[in-house]
């Protein structure tokens, strides 16, 4: 039986493991953690003080016939076909890497200090709780939401934070005493133009200042000021800054399968790691030029399951990122490798669809709702939508 080792039991790794037939493959998932986390909820812990339990044991999500090993992988030798943990090594016929990303606050001076003090909503539950505490301690002044690097998990999430922070401040009656600023290294608030045309007027109508071309250089925590390499500066009272998103610390042989941010170089259609026909990478861990989102991890896992079964399926780059714009409304960022992002207006229904996702998330990792996803993805096909929303 072909031995498939999947490193990482998050959204991508679990969907893949559950999509493969254990009668046909010997399937092992290795994760350093016994639990998996529903990360989109970080946003609601940070900005709404949500309390729901957002973790589940990996074993409870894996269907029958799949093995789980709880160990941290430290080295992967693609030449020797071996995965090393601290005490063991595992060989494979086919390897799939689905290790996601980590945040790195060491890259810019001052970032670690403000992250320790105020938190962020891309690292873990504790940091998201810290943001909620910081917001509740805020008495007015300059509130900053910013992206310290252009690469970020869930591309709408930086702006979602800005929208939800404004809603919070407004409801607390602090709007008159506060200035909210969103900074981004991109040329506009949201990088892709069609959805930016929908989002930017909303930001303006809520008095959220936008600073574009702002590449964070360093933070002076004494002067409480953030500087960009383009030469701009902003002073802060409450800075909520998304740290750079990078690949995890696993050593690879050969090391050139990683890019400078430790993302794995993989083919955007087949997810095959460059130079290897027995190793793949899916989800946030890759350098594939599409959104780092659970939906992408899901779709890549499904394509890869087909490929491992000998079907010549290809990933089309489809994105479907929910975008909460505050006050109970939302939209989606929908596009693909061949279709530009749709100019999709926010509505209440779209926000409710995001909420439904939270309810069905664990079951969807098991494949229970595959039929519903198929219908949903067909209904929201970007080619179709682009004809309707011009």
């Amino acid at each position, binding site marked *: 039986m072909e031995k498939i080792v999947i490193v990482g039991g998050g959204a991508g790794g679990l969907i893949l493991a559950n999509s493969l037939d254990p009668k046909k493959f010997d399937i092992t998932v290795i994760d350093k953690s016994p639990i998996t986390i529903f990360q989109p909820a970080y946003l609601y812990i940070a900005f709404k003080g949500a309390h729901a339990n957002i973790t589940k044991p990996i074993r409870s999500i894996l269907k029958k016939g799949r093995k789980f090993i709880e160990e941290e992988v430290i080295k992967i030798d693609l030449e020797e076909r071996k995965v090393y943990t601290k005490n063991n090594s595992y060989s494979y016929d086919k390897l799939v890497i689905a290790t996601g990303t980590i945040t790195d606050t060491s890259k810019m001076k001052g970032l670690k200090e403000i992250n320790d003090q105020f938190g962020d909503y891309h690292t873990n539950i504790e940091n998201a709780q810290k943001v909620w505490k910081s917001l509740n301690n805020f008495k007015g002044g300059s509130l900053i939401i910013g992206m310290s690097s*252009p*690469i970020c998990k869930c591309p709408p999430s930086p702006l979602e934070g800005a929208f939800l922070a404004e809603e919070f401040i407004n409801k607390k009656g602090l709007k008159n005493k506060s200035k909210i600023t969103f900074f981004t290294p991109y*040329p506009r608030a949201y*990088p*892709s*133009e069609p959805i930016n045309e929908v989002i930017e007027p909303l930001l303006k109508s809520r008095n959220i200042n936008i600073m574009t*071309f702002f*590449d964070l250089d360093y933070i002076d925590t004494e002067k409480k000021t953030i500087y960009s*390499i383009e*030469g701009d500066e902003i002073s802060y009272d409450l800075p909520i800054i998304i740290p750079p998103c990078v690949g995890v610390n696993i050593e690879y042989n050969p090391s050139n399968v990683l890019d400078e941010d430790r993302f794995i170089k993989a083919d955007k259609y087949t997810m095959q790691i460059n130079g290897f026909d027995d190793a793949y990478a899916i989800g946030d861990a890759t350098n594939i030029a599409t959104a780092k989102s659970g939906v992408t991890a899901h779709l890549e896992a499904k394509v890869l399951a087909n490929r491992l079964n000998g079907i010549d399926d290809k990933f089309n780059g489809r994105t479907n990122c929910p975008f909460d714009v505050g006050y109970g409304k939302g939209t989606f960022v929908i596009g693909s490798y061949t279709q530009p992002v749709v100019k999709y207006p926010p509505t209440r229904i779209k926000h409710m669809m995001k909420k439904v996702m939270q309810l069905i998330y664990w079951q969807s990792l098991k494949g229970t709702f595959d039929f519903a996803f198929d219908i949903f993805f067909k209904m929201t096909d970007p080619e179709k939508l682009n004809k309707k929303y011009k």
Partner: protein
Amino acid sequence: MGKRIVVDARGSSCPGPIVELSKAYRNAAVGDVIELWATDPGVKADTQAWAEKTKNKIESIKEDQDKIIIVIDIENR
């Protein structure tokens, strides 16, 4: 004379090339030249806005068969 940095952002579409450009700019110094290769037509307007913002000079914008080549003199960093 500074160094010449070639940034190959072909195939990445909006806002890909600008991301690659700003990454290169982070490690550049005054006197360097950045040569940006891209296929996305939006790159021209975005790079012009970027150069204005960062006070750097666009030396030339050329199109050959399979790419757009933008040469930027780094005068400010």
